[in-house]
């Protein structure tokens, strides 16, 4: 009851014209970056941080959240129409969505994708509304030991899920922690890893790293895939599914929502993982698994519901525990901190207007995405035809503008370029970049919790297994590593 009361308060805030406008802007921008190759939601959110630095935190974060879920809607459009996932989380939609397009059912595929995204997005926000206060209350009893254990669990799950090799995941995470260490030590103020240069004393700006790592490799890979997708001429009429389509999609949507929500709650769970699991589940449950990959509507409805359910659910660990589940959330966490908001159990109590305004705006934003996507689908589809030789250089310049704008220094621009080139080589060598970004953003909090915990135990690391809650979390972390070691290569 209290949550509903808070939600009405949040709705009053979210319905203010400024907040509505920024939710709309975020949803449009998110759909756009979801549709266009080269600039995903992570880099976009990072680029928005300097632009929104002077704004009130609520409209700024509302806009960034809009980019997050808007990109999920946009990503599926390109998956269905040109067999190119705009986002990693919409890869599975290609399998049956594009087949439906080839069969002349693009309209229905787009329709069911938008509707299932809306249903799942809305239901996951209901979940967020009820779970967030419970998790925050529980987390209030956590000390540095438990907080460290939770962040450690987040790292192990991200490393386990990102990429094919555990060793390369750990390497990426270690490199991120090295970057996080650069600059003045927060406790004693002594310079660390500055190599005698004044520029490094302020640390490595995470925006420069995120923008470089997520945008530059995309642009360079665009050169490799020189052929622009061909838009199949098909009728977009009949966006609303028939009764038969509904019957086939209803349960996959609900199952996808539940699975996506569950995956989103786990630190490290991502939309990509949720869609893979849902697609696999639907295929196993189907009476006609042979239809999957040949235009089965369940293969679109389930994964599309799952990736949107993740967006609401993943806000729970971010807002209540201060743990971002993936790269997009890490960028969002960075934005919150730059706006002076510290995600964690105290945020809900200290800034209820902000949290509930954000949650309410997500309801409204999801509706906006639905209304934007169905009638404007032709426009979004046409945007995919913008030639890469024009789009690529423009994205690179945008990266420079966004990075330079943070602190108005050229050093950050060089960090962005170096991070981008490094990420391109890392991708080639199959070293995942997500653990690095997560380590860079969460690193300072992780270090604080680690140092406080070890100070409590006089330097004895066994403190993490002598506290019962921490022990359980550490066992979960160990389990995630063991599970990931089975059936995958070590190097």
């Amino acid at each position: 009851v209290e949550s509903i009361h808070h939600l009405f308060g949040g709705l009053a805030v979210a319905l203010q014209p400024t907040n509505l406008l920024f939710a709309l802007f975020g949803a449009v921008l998110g759909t756009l970056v979801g549709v266009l190759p080269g600039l995903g939601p992570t880099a976009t959110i990072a680029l928005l941080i300097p632009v929104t630095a002077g704004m009130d935190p609520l409209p700024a974060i509302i806009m960034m959240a809009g980019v997050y879920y808007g990109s999920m809607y946009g990503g599926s459009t390109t998956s269905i129409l040109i067999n190119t996932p705009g986002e990693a989380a919409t890869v599975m939609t290609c399998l049956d969505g594009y087949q439906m397009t080839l069969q002349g059912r693009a309209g229905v595929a787009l329709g069911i994708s938008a509707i299932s995204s809306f249903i799942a997005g809305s239901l996951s926000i209901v979940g967020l509304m009820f779970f967030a206060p419970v998790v925050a209350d529980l987390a209030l009893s956590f000390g540095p030991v438990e907080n460290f254990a939770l962040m450690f669990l987040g790292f192990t799950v991200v490393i386990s899920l990102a990429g094919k090799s555990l060793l390369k995941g750990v390497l990426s995470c270690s490199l991120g922690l090295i970057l996080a260490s650069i600059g003045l030590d927060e406790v004693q103020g002594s310079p660390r890893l500055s190599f005698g240069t004044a520029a490094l004393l302020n640390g490595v700006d995470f925006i420069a790293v995120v923008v470089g790592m997520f945008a530059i490799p995309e642009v360079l890979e665009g050169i490799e895939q020189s052929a622009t997708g061909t838009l199949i001429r098909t009728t977009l009429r009949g966006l609303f599914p028939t009764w038969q389509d509904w019957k086939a999609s209803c349960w996959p949507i609900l199952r996808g929502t539940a699975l996506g929500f569950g995956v989103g709650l786990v630190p490290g769970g991502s939309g990509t993982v949720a869609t893979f699991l849902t697609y696999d589940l639907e295929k196993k449950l189907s009476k006609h698994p042979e239809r999957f990959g040949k235009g089965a509507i369940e293969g679109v409805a389930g994964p599309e519901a799952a990736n949107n359910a993740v967006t609401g659910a993943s806000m729970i660990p971010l807002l209540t525990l201060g743990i971002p589940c993936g790269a997009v959330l890490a960028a969002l966490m960075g934005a919150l901190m730059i706006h002076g908001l510290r995600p964690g159990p105290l945020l809900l109590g200290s800034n209820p207007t902000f949290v509930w305004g954000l949650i309410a705006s997500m309801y409204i934003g999801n509706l906006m995405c639905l209304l934007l996507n169905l009638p404007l689908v032709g426009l979004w589809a046409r945007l995919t035809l913008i030639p890469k030789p024009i789009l690529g250089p423009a994205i690179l310049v945008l990266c420079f503008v966004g990075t330079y704008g943070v602190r108005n220094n050229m050093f950050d621009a060089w960090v962005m370029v170096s991070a981008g080139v490094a990420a391109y080589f890392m991708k080639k060598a199959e070293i995942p970049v997500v653990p690095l970004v997560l380590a860079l953003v969460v690193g300072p909090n992780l270090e604080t919790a680690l140092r406080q915990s070890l100070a409590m135990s006089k330097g004895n690391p066994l403190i993490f297994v002598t506290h019962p809650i921490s022990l359980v979390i550490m066992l979960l972390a160990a389990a995630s590593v063991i599970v990931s070691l089975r059936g995958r290569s070590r190097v």
Partner: protein
Amino acid sequence: VAVRNANRICGAVALAVAAVVGWEARNLVILTAGVPGPGLLPKLAALGTALCGLGLLLSRPGESRRLEWPAGDVGRKIVGSIAALCVYVGLVPATGFLLATALFTAGLTGWWGGYRWWVAVLIGVGAAVAMFVLFDLLLGAPLPRGLWS
């Protein structure tokens, strides 16, 4: 082009990074009288990097994956684009955002897309002016003026 022993190369690079970080962090204290110092995280991270690097370096040849590097024209375009980006970032403080961006965008668009030179210049100048107006003049994010300051 297939680059053999990609994992070993990565391992060697990781070990080199760990060695440089370890050397730079050598004077940072890990623990004094039971209280963790500023050296704890960087040294732990360097150790992690070194161990992963060693693991990759010692991986058996059979496990050492090949890295597919784009060959021919595509490879040249990628190396050239990275070089162009570096020149662009180096040029901005001197020439200012507008001129450097126009040159960079026109050059890359013309090269990647094979457009006629005047079309590429038109796109370059248009993109530079549009971004300058949007970010510097409308959003108030100051961009380097260089010569024009």
